[in-house]
């Protein structure tokens, strides 16, 4: 009783491997009794190769590609009728990229003889061409549709898996299967790409067949399909989709019917979770494939047919097969492994970022702690903590340009995602983009918006120092001068008065500016020559990082964002013109030199999308205002002096001379011939900052919150100018001591010493000033609630019931606002619109404070005002007049919290007609989400690939 073996070779575009496969087949110690090859519509010369080797009669050529199951079917139909002993007729399936070791068939048949109950036998599969790495020795399936081989990735074969055992399935490459079993069960025609073997094994197990491994037999497999080498044109997304779809299909077709809903849900959530994880690890194509595969879950008819067919063959109870499947905890173990891998990748990147690339190469925490950069950042952080005392936690950080933080970060999300807002008399203005980073930070801080606001305001200063240090180390390669520059730059935030005036926009944008500059220097890394040359891949990734930083800077300070873009253009042109070529480039080349900036700028605009689209029509020039209130009353006089000393504000700034030192030192830096090119470039950036600050300083924009023209705070572009000057000074430092000490004492030394003294005294004085002043008196002037407790509670219960607050008296005028919350919050600054600009109120408000009557009161009710409050000390004349007005009834008991009246007419909540924004803005938000995820993925650290 001898076995009859038919070798069945399935090929598709395998010309690369087929000759070797055929050679290995011919070298078998036990040759197959017949060989039949099926070519599945190859476009290369695979078919010819096969016909040459096997003869045309043994090759089935399929004209259209039908996939593996159809090819096997085609081959089976070409086989002659079974002989006398059908039980001993075997089919040995080989792929065009699977080369059997010479003894493969011999060992397989030996195993078959040893285990007569076995219907399917699988060899040990090793990697081709490395030949030693194990790929599979039998395979099973986890409940999430993952092939479980029980092997470590890339495990070497040292005989450790050489015990033969019963398994769920074996790979089709090298599979020896009884012809009768194969003809009875066939491969599922739906599974053309992946998991046909698992499905076959599973069905075989249900049908009572035995699948065993025969580890003595070895087949080398290139896994050309799975790795994408067979179809290089097919994208990673398509391969991922096919693989995941097949996995879902196999699970749902073979799984227990009672568990189907659970399985489906698990596949759905698992798929989405994997998509997110893949995005995080910068594998967008695979993530997309995951999502596409989920669509396959919505094909119940196909599944029904598949399940019926399986039920027809089933002979064995499901629980007997269960032992062959992977244990339940297997997916979780893999999940933990993946998570650890992602965290490791991100962690590596963070360490890499913070340490900087050029300077702090020394490894180990000791070196890190000794770094002057760390010392500067620590000093700044401690100083910020000192300034923040009394302002953190109490929720009283507001005043000047800074509004109080809302109760929770959820309020920020709500404001950002809403099209219309319960602010003032209602608003359909687009929420500012800077709410997104704040909301994210607040969410990370467990929803505490107050903590997020405090951390943003005070944390900006050490963050600015860290960024400036990193940038300067990169530019100068000198840690000492970088630390000096970082200290001077970071101290600009308090010394310009940005901190004392609560200029949130300038603080954050100023903190992010050096990070932006640092990433932007990577844009030119693709250049083969020049000071910033480097890795082209880094340059590609830098574009997306620049886009992210730029979007953040522009969201908080549009003026600084604008200045940064112009400065980037200037630097790009200068880099092109200056150092490498001896002849100046023609102007036409300037456009080309600006090209690397195009993508980041466009991407930054796309990142801020609802705002970039709607800001111009809704805000006009108001869009140039920094985040926060305009607080134009706190602005300084402007002019040349303000620019030189970086003193945009009238109050809260350090003595002017501290600011003047930087431009003076930067001017002296120009005297050094060796670094003149770089210092001139820095001056060009300073020029851009100054020009933008000067142009914006003379501008007045209409602030819709008050309906008045306000001057702009120009602290943002001033930071760019002074930051550039700091860089200029730092760029001139390398080697200066050596150069000066090597010469005879003269004017040079005097100038150098004076400059050094000034450069050292200024930050010391700035720091001392800051320690003394702290956060200044303006922040903390405003409480969290403008309203007395009973009204604050009312607005929280029903925010549609607005409160008109009237402060002041008839002689000096009244200041009014309509509140729907205990106070206005960060973010409302851009949303609020002057109620008097509302045609429904233009008569009512003046009427209310001069000769109030019922008409005025009814007009208030129509825009959502339910209460009128005159905070203490209430103007007695106003109070008396409102007491006597029909439609108003006193709501306040005492006068300690001011006088309040309830409108007798129930207020109709402010109705805002958002028009096209009702659908347009959600659409734009969706676009933004996609862009943010996309850019984040492209800019994110790459997953370590093994």
């Amino acid at each position, binding site marked *: 009783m001898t076995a009859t073996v038919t070798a069945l070779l399935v090929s598709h575009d395998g010309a690369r491997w087929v000759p070797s496969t055929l050679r290995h087949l011919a070298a078998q110690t036990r040759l197959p009794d017949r060989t039949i090859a099926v070519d599945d519509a190859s476009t290369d010369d695979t078919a010819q190769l096969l016909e040459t080797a096997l003869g045309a009669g043994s090759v089935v050529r399929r004209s259209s590609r039908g996939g593996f199951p159809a090819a096997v079917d085609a081959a089976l139909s070409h086989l002659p009728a079974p002989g006398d002993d059908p039980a001993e007729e075997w089919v040995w399936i080989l792929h065009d990229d699977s080369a059997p070791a010479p003894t493969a068939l011999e060992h397989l048949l030996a195993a078959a003889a040893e285990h007569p109950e076995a219907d399917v036998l699988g060899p040990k599969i090793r990697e081709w061409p490395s030949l030693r790495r194990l790929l599979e020795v039998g395979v099973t399936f986890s409940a999430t549709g993952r092939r479980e081989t029980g092997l470590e990735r890339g495990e070497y074969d040292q005989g450790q898996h050489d015990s033969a055992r019963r398994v769920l399935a074996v790979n089709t490459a090298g599979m020896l299967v009884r012809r009768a079993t194969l003809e009875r069960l066939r491969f599922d025609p739906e599974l053309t790409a992946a998991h046909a073997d698992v499905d076959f094994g599973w069905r075989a197990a249900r049908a009572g067949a035995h699948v065993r491994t025969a580890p003595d037999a070895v087949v080398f497999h290139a896994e050309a399909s799975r790795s994408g080498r067979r179809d290089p044109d097919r994208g990673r997304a398509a391969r991922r989709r096919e693989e995941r779809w097949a996995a879902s299909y196999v699970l749902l077709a073979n799984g227990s019917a009672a568990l189907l809903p659970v399985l489906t849900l698990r596949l759905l959530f698992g798929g989405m979770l994997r998509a997110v994880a893949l995005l995080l690890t910068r594998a967008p194509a695979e993530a997309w494939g995951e999502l596409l595969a989920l669509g396959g879950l919505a094909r119940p008819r196909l599944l029904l047919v598949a399940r019926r067919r399986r039920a027809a063959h089933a002979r064995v109870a499901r629980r007997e097969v269960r032992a062959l499947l992977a244990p339940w905890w297997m997916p979780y173990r893999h999940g933990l492994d993946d998570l650890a891998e992602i965290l490791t990748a991100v962690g590596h990147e963070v360490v890499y970022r913070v340490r900087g690339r050029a300077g702090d190469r020394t490894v180990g925490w000791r070196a890190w702690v000794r770094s002057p950069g760390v010392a500067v950042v620590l000093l700044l952080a401690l100083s910020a903590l000192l300034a923040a005392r009394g302002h953190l936690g109490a929720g009283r950080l507001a005043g000047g340009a800074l509004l109080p933080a809302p109760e929770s970060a959820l309020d920020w999300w709500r404001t950002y995602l809403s099209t219309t807002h319960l602010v003032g008399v209602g608003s359909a203005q687009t929420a500012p983009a800077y709410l997104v980073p704040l909301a994210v930070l607040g969410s990370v801080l467990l929803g505490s918006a107050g903590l997020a606001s405090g951390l943003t305001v005070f944390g900006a200063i050490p963050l600015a120092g860290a960024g400036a240090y990193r940038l300067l180390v990169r530019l100068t390669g000198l840690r000492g001068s970088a630390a000096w520059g970082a200290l001077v730059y970071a101290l600009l935030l308090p010394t310009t008065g940005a901190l004392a005036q609560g200029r949130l926009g300038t603080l954050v944008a100023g903190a992010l500016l050096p990070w932006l500059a640092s990433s932007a220097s990577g844009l030119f890394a693709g250049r083969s020559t020049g000071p910033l040359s480097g890795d082209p891949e880094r340059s590609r990734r830098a574009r997306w990082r620049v886009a992210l930083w730029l979007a953040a800077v522009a969201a908080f300070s549009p003026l600084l964002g604008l200045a940064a873009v112009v400065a980037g253009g200037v630097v790009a042109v200068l880099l092109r013109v200056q150092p490498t070529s001896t002849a100046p480039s023609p102007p036409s080349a300037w456009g080309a030199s600006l090209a690397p900036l195009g993508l980041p700028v466009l991407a930054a605009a796309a990142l801020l999308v609802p705002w970039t689209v709607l800001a111009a029509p809704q805000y006009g020039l108001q869009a140039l205002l920094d985040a926060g209130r305009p607080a134009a009353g706190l602005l300084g006089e402007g002019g040349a002096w303000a620019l030189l000393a970086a003193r945009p504000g009238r109050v809260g700034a350090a003595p002017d001379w501290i600011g003047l030192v930087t431009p003076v030192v930067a001017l002296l830096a120009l005297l050094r011939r060796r670094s003149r090119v770089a210092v001139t470039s820095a001056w060009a950036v300073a*020029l851009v900052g100054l020009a933008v600050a000067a142009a914006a300083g003379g501008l007045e924009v209409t602030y819709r919150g008050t309906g008045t023209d306000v*001057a702009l705070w120009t602290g943002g572009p001033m930071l760019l100018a002074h930051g550039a000057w700091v860089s200029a000074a730092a760029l001139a430092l390398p080697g200066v001591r050596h150069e000066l000490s090597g010469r005879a004492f003269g004017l040079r030394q005097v100038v150098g010493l004076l400059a050094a003294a000034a450069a050292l005294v200024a930050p010391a004085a700035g720091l001392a000033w800051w320690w003394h002043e702290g956060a200044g008196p303006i922040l903390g002037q405003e409480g969290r609630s403008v309203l007395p407790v009973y009204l604050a509670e009312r607005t929280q219960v029903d925010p549609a019931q607005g409160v008109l607050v009237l402060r002041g008296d008839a002689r000096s005028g009244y200041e009014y606002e309509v509140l729907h919350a205990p106070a206005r919050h960060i973010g409302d600054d851009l949303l609020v619109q002057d109620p008097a600009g509302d045609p429904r109120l233009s008569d009512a408000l003046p009427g209310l404070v001069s000769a109030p*009557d019922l008409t005025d009161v009814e007009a208030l009710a129509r825009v959502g005002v339910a209460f009128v409050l005159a905070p203490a000390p209430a103007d007695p004349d106003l109070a*008396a007049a409102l007491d006597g007005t029909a439609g108003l009834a006193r709501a306040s008991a005492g006068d300690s919290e001011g006088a309040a009246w309830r409108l007798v007419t129930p207020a109709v909540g402010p109705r805002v007609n958002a028009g096209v924004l009702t659908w347009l803005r959600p659409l734009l938000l969706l676009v933004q989400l996609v862009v943010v995820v996309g850019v984040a993925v492209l800019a994110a650290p790459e997953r370590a690939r093994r």
Partner: protein
Amino acid sequence: MSRRRDLAAGAVVGAVGVVLLLAPGTPDARTSSAPAEVPATATALTCAAAGRTGQTQGRTVVGRVPASATGRAEVAVRVGAAGRLRTESRELGPSLQPGGGALADGLTVRGEGAAARGLLAGRIDEGAGALAVLGCEQARGSWWFPGAGASVRHRTELFLTNADEGPAVVDVRLHGASGTVVPEAGRGITLAPGESRRLDLVDLGLSGDEVTVEVSADRGRVVAAALDLTERGTADGYEWLAPAVPQTSGALPALPADSGARRLVVTNTGEEQALVSVEVATADGSFVPLGVEQVSVDPGGLAVVDLGDVVTEEAAVRLSSDGERLVAAWRGLVGEDSVVAGWAAPLGGPATAIAAGDSSRLELVGTGRGAARVVAYAADGAEVARERLDLAGGALVTWKLPPRAAYVVVDPLRGSLAGAVLHSGPGAALQPLVALPGDVLVPVLRPRE
């Protein structure tokens, strides 16, 4: 190469210099906090509903000065203490016409839109040899009546009217020689919308021949009037006390020459001791009366100065304090009728007074040189006399209204002026000039940033 670098560096620094030179200053914020004067859009003048005095008979008059545009004004007459209003809408041309209704009902004249400007209204009480004239006023939260009394021989009745549409709660305080007294019955007097209330100071449980009454609203606004009754022989002399606004200096118009014993009452409304300088203004000029150059008044208290010996001729009195705000009045007696000159506020714009009695005479007193245009109108709105009055430094100027005149409009042209109209025969009455409703101050409104 190096040359080019130097040039580039020079060019960049030069450009920075140019930017600095061209850098503009921060534009000034154009914010104004001065209230704007705009034409009033609604005015309500209310006269006290005082009918219970018995001795008085008289009439109310309403009208509008000719210079103002025509328009419909609503005249509301209040009926009964419950404050139900009988309202009639009337075309009020440039004329003075009877207000209608009984004196006891009180009167409110309300003008809206164009009719809000130039409204005037008053009541004239006459009979039994006495005369009193009351200009109707707009509601407010604080009223002072110096020259009142709470004794058998000299008592004052206070009339409170809430002409608004919300409730009003007022306190009545008395300032006497011993300081401020807040009687229990004077606390928290609540007036429903439209309600009128009569209060006899004696009934409040107080006594004092000379007191100053203060009405202060805790909630809402009222119109207050004080009828001063002086027991003289068979009939009482009566006079509506002029409401006073506390200020550091002011004038008391001249009493008639035959006013007999004149008593000056000064109340210090401030928190500190006040030292008050007294000056007498006659037609010829002003002088400081010997012996009473300065009067010291306790905070919240009251000082009475007998000026009968010092001032005999027709003269006004000017008072100024060293810081605290004052209210003052001085009183005399013409025949059986009392006459009280109230604390005249400097005129801020056109002011008016109606004519009553046999003859009326305008008195103007200024602190320095000044000028005013006075126009007298007949009841039908026809102009009967027009005069420009010039005031020498600190002197008193009088101008007799022509017999046909029904009211007079005084328009201050220059200087700081105050004035009143003296009505005489039978009896005498001094009526302060009441500002003509015209422009109102609309406070500046700023949205909070």
